[in-house]
């Protein structure tokens, strides 16, 4: 039950029919790209993996929403998709900057960029709770921190579900930033490869202008697909989540399946845009 009294809707299980449809959508998207522009097949698979990473990562981010803003529930007081987007896009910034060094460093830079944003944000959340509001961190979902062993029931103030960011939520936030930053960067990197290769033959302009166009297109598609995967996952979470120790975390396979289908379709359009 959430702090505002609404039940947590949605079951934990996976719907086999829906999963099968998602799988078919993914396969059809890959097949279409393979037939139209075979060189983009591997990048499309990369885009799908990127969407999956984002979707999985969003589940780690401790988000308390409106109740957290009154110290009524633990987590960060903002929306799931928005916080993940902040972290993931900061990662995309770092990853795009390091793209010239190749895929490994670019992905690592993207992951660290997202993780660093979350590490600093989560720290400042706890600083505000502790030093400006005088409230210690306490989880509402577990009695004991799985990492540090801190107990929580006595540290919850009366009439609340907990507050602040316990260490497990902090670690979850950083992990979410890492996955989100890496996923966003992977999408950007793969699309950039496709655009840099396909654009000169499609448009036939000078390479200088085309590089800017390729970077812009890949960047805006990466931002858009990031939001698609993050918002889809937010629907799966339904409201708030405390991090990897929250029972809602177990729902991640559903979001991953959904995001893979959504990323496949978005990636298909992003690639068809330049090859048709």
């Amino acid at each position: 039950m959430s702090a505002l009294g609404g039940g947590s809707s949605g079951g934990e299980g996976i719907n086999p029919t829906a999963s099968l449809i998602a799988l078919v959508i993914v396969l059809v998207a890959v097949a279409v790209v393979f037939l139209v522009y075979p060189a983009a097949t591997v990048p499309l698979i990369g885009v799908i993996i990127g969407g999956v990473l984002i979707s999985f990562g969003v589940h780690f981010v401790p988000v308390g929403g409106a109740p957290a803003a009154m110290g009524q529930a633990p987590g960060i007081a903002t929306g799931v998709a928005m916080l993940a987007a902040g972290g993931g896009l900061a990662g995309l910034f770092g990853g795009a900057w390091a793209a010239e060094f190749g895929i490994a460093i670019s992905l690592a830079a993207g992951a660290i960029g997202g993780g660093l944003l979350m590490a600093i944000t989560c720290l400042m959340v706890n600083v505000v709770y502790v030093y400006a509001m005088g409230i210690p961190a306490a989880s509402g979902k577990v009695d004991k921190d799985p990492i540090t062993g801190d107990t929580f029931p006595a540290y919850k103030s009366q009439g609340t579900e907990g507050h602040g960011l316990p260490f497990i939520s902090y670690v979850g936030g950083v992990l979410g930033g890492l996955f989100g930053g890496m996923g966003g960067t992977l999408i950007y990197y793969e699309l950039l490869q496709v655009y840099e290769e396909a654009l000169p033959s499609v448009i036939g302009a000078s390479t200088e202008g085309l590089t800017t166009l390729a970077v812009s297109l890949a960047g805006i598609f990466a931002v858009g697909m990031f939001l698609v995967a993050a918002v889809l996952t937010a629907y799966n979470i339904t409201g708030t989540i405390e991090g990897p120790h929250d029972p809602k975390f177990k729902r991640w396979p559903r979001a991953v399946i959904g995001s893979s289908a959504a990323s496949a379709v978005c990636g298909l359009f992003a690639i068809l845009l330049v090859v048709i």
Partner: protein
Amino acid sequence: MEEILFGIGISALAGALATVAGAAEDTESDIGSQGDPNSQVQLAPQMGYVHRIYNKAVSGEPPAYGLWVALAAGVAWALMAIQFNAILALVIGSAVAVFVQGVYATTAYLGRTASLAKFEQPVYIDILKSVTSVTMAHAFVAIFATVTMCFLMIEALGHPFPLPLMGIVWGIALGAAGSATGNPFYGKERQYQKYPFGAGLPISASGDIVRYAEAGQRSSIDNGWFTSKGAGPASGICFGLIVFFELWRTILFEPFAAGWGAVIAGVVLIIVFMVIDRYVETWARKTYGPYTEEAAPEEEAAA
């Protein structure tokens, strides 16, 4: 060497701009009740507490700032493409974005407040006139500082993104950092100032926000005055640290180990922040202590 020094100088300048942007962003959102505490401002009349607090929350802070900063960046970018002076272009771009913010704030306040008509919450035209311009002024500072920071990242540090895309990325990050850090302070400490310090708000008290000031009714501008002493600077430090360390680790350490240097520096920074967080958490537990007696003797589990 000179290039690295220049890069670090730009990182520091960008970090300073980000600090100003973060502080202004959070104060703007608190004056306009755009963050998560807006739920209480919206709820209060439904519980019978009619108030004079501004409420423009029809969008979260990250997408709203993503829009405004990208808009400012887009206009500035277009003006620079026709050979406008860069600073003039940035100012004009930010001014255009602030007018959009003003239209957004006006329609959002009217819409949200009018929807509470059946709970006898009036729409105050004097609030619209006095508070909207204050949020616009704060928004201008936040947008201009962020767009200038984006401009520096591209022109001085050579990031490949074009200015409008950079505006979306850092606008969303600005809103995420500002809302995450600033919301609890505004929500708990200001809206529920009459409830005891050092505890979360009981869920049963939701909606009972503070509506009166020292003299007369509380205005949203007073909320900006209050949060600019705590949540604003904290959000500024948060966003400033993010931007500074993101640039600093890349500028200084990317040349090492074929690019891996910046990644290793980032990992070290994350671990340092994690240790500081753990210190803050344990400090709070030791200093403030539990609210109730612990049920059983605390078992010391391995950390």
